């Protein structure tokens, strides 16, 4: 038994195995013990596969370690990623008890790479939210201060990594759902270019925005996990055809002549003072190390938010139509078909999900389609063009990940617009399909982490990861900060 698994990185775990000091089952057991100890206060996990995980770890053959990049590495998955024979609920009543008959492509790749799925994490219902408070089942608490929200929607995955209950986790990012909770929980979270990671088996929220991505303690672990799950998948027509080139290898490259930029007028952005300071420090560091930091014109963030909520909700209204009580999940038994539909969906979905379905249905309705959906598509095309222009001039854009550090549980739950604004810096990357990563920079005076976002052009994950790696070294968050004291 290992006592302090909380701080282990993937490299640490591999070292333990290669020096043959431990077996995979022991590592899994240690993490399971930590979950048992810490999670009651955090509430990151919806399902923990205790016996199954140890059983799977037992079958791993140490002789195969070299060919398996995640050999014996425990991992947590957001509960909207399908796992064969294991529950996948999207934190929704409507999928309570649902067990998929197939594995998502990322799950197949993780298994192939030797990872062991230790559990599934809490989230905002169907990934709709920014605090994980929209889960139908439980609250998740921020490991840095349990009065605070972990962010969302991948709040469970970010909190699990932050609390050291798993070394890495997968989340999904539709408008910032990996990066924002990573920022609020002081961990690294990234989403690749749209199509970089297969969506096959990711329960759809907004198909043209959704991307699965890694959450880890540092850039290297995140890159490591990204390399495993990326690459073309014939089951996903929107998956990028060309092969993925290694991000871990990109870390070895010199930062070289990468051109950095920040949004024009970044000093006047509507930010919490501590976030403003963190961004200012980042720019200062770069300039001090002799780099030019240009100011670039970013798309209008408010227009981007409107565009995002129209298109994402339109897609969601259609994607969530299948939860009707006919074939699986929750069913309200009724005398007529219409009544069954209405009661099943009325009782099975939470308030935020219903709000999105209503919005999405409205913007697609005949008579409103042109005014909303078509116009939002035009805005999307403009934002894509704006970013194309930006990235023809610079390599990366630096922004805060979130305008504030973590907010208190319950603080924004009744104010959807305030909640939506939490994603103001992250949604543009999903609208344009570009890669983006959040890395922890420093703590706020209240002791809450602040994340910085690095965005790059389409398919330029390598540039993004090199810039993020360089910033991570400068911030030196891991060694400066002792980490959350949990439980």
């Amino acid at each position: 038994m290992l006592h302090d698994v909380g701080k282990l990185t993937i490299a640490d775990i591999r070292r333990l195995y290669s020096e043959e000091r431990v077996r995979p089952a022991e590592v899994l057991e240690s993490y399971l013990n930590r979950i048992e100890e810490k999670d009651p206060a955090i509430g990151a996990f919806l399902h923990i596969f205790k016996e199954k995980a140890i059983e799977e770890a037992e079958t791993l053959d140490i002789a195969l370690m070299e060919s398996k990049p995640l050999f014996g590495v425990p991992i947590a998955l957001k509960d909207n990623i399908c796992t064969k024979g294991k529950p996948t609920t999207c934190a929704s009543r409507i999928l309570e008890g649902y067990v998929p008959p197939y594995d998502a492509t990322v799950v197949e790749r993780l298994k192939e790479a030797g990872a062991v799925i230790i559990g599934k994490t809490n989230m905002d219902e169907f990934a709709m939210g920014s605090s994980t408070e929209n889960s139908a089942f439980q609250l998740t608490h921020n490991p840095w201060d349990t009065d605070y929200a972990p962010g969302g929607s991948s709040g469970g995955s970010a909190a699990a990594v932050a609390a050291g209950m798993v070394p890495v986790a997968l989340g999904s990012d539709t408008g910032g759902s990996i990066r924002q909770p990573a920022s609020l929980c002081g961990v690294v979270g990234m989403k690749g270019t749209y199509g970089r990671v297969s969506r096959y088996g990711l329960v759809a929220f907004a198909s043209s925005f959704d991307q699965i991505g890694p959450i880890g303690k540092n850039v290297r672990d995140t890159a490591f996990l990204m390399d495993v799950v990326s690459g073309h998948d014939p089951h996903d027509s929107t998956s990028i055809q060309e092969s993925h080139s290694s991000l871990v290898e990109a870390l070895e490259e010199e930062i070289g002549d990468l051109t950095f930029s920040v949004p024009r007028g970044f000093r006047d952005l509507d930010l919490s003072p501590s976030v403003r300071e963190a961004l200012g420090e980042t720019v200062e560091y770069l300039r001090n190390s002799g780099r030019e930091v240009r100011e670039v014109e970013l798309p209008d963030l408010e227009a981007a938010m409107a565009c995002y909520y129209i298109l994402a909700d339109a897609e969601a209204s259609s994607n969530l139509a299948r939860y009707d009580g006919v074939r699986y999940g929750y069913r309200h038994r009724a005398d007529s078909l219409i009544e069954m539909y209405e009661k099943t969906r009325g009782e099975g979905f939470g308030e935020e999900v219903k709000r999105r379905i209503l919005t999405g249905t409205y913007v697609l309705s005949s008579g409103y389609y042109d005014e909303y959906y078509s116009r939002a598509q035009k805005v999307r095309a403009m934002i894509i063009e704006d970013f194309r222009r930006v990235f023809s001039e610079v390599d990366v854009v630096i922004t805060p990940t979130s305008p504030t550090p973590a907010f208190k549980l319950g603080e924004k739950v009744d104010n959807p617009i305030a909640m939506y604004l939490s994603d103001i810096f992250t949604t543009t990357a999903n609208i344009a399909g570009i890669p983006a990563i959040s890395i922890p920079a420093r703590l706020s005076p209240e002791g809450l982490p602040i994340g910085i976002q690095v965005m790059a052009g389409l398919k330029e994950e390598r540039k993004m990861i090199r810039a993020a790696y360089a910033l991570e070294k400068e911030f030196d968050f891991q060694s400066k900060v002792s980490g959350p004291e949990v439980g």
Partner: protein
Amino acid sequence: MNVTEVQEYVPVIGLEVHAQLLTKTKIFCSCPSTYGAEPNTLVCPVCLGLPGALPVLNREAVSMAILMGLATNCTIAEESVFARKNYFYPDCPKNYQISMFDKPLCADGFIEFELDGETKRVRIERIHLEDDAGKLIHEEDGGSLVDFNRCGVPLIEIVSRPDMHSAEEAGAYLVMLRKILRYLGICSGNMEEGSLRCDVNVSVMPAGSSEFGTKTEIKNLNSFKAVEMGIRYEIERQIEVLKNGGKISQVTNLWDSGAKKLVTMRSKEYAHDYRYFPEPDLLPLEVDDEWIDGIRTKMVELPLERERRFRKEYNLSSYDASVLCSEKKIADYYEELASIAGDPKLSANWMMREVMEELKEQSVSIEQFSLQPERLAGLIRLVKENVVSGSAARDVFKEMVKSNESAEEVVRRLGLEQISGEGELEKMIDEVIAENPREVERYREGKIQLLGFFVGQVMKKSRGKANPKLTGEIIKRKLSG
């Protein structure tokens, strides 16, 4: 409908035809698209619409749709876009259908057919691809079950312009459409099994008007007969309403084939808002010239062209040509037969009578028919060369259907070679003359129609083997002498 009414009002008819494509697998997954399997055995996460599953387009379905587009003179779009058609129904597992909306694969074509000796042209507005829904099975206790095997079977929807003006025209258009689909080998065209389905839009307008009346839709037309009957019923109903000063309301009617009448399903107030939008799980469908050229090489001679060629090249009647071209395989069989036998007219006669009757009797298709063209051509040659008589040949045909023997072998086995030796014939004729003195007398008195009687007697005596033509000549000679 009486003649005056037809003159007072002009019906305007458009058809929306759904055809299941004969691909090996479904349109968005690799499940077999076979008909008639045990319920819910041909399903997977994709066609069941399970959470997280994604569609991947079957290119074979696209090729078939393009082939139909080319056959109906459509323009093939370089880029077409799949769209979601949103509606709730238990046979539709995603509660949306993946179809095409404002950017269909094929557009602006036409189909020609002949009706009462006239060539008619009906314009095709569009042909697009979509996935089929499952099938609801209603139980006696009021419950319902769903079979998802059909879910995801590829469909093309062929939408005509409102260019038809009578039930007969609509029927003839549908018949030609089905023939084309079957010629191309992309749809079985079975309306009873639902592999071909037809919805109809009907309106009537006062003669001389250029403004269409309010249209109604007819669904559930599951046979050619139902299509024509439903249209006729609806035209009469609409004229009746208008003549009584009423207005037509925009409704969808279901054809009740038992009661032979239309039942209103829903009115316009309940019309669906399908909230179409581009399917984000699929990329726009791009079709380049290379793909189209490859498909063009699979194009066959189409039924109307072939019918016209048969009439001209083989000098067949319109009726014979249309029957022989009703199915591509029958036309192929006929052409092979005619070419080997070297006699298109005689071959057509054999096709129209014996072959068609035999197929019907055995209820087999021409491909399953035991007597293939080469063997049948052998028989036709024997008839042509007077080796066997027409009546004996029919017996030979029956034998050949049952065995693998050649015509010559059967003729030899049954001893049916036609007797054309004059000596042998004269012997039999003399006997017949001796046996029928009264008829001989009457013939000589001028009742020359009795010649047939004498020939018949000789045929009987020879058990059908006598050459009837030669026999007649000898009898004539003998009795006039």
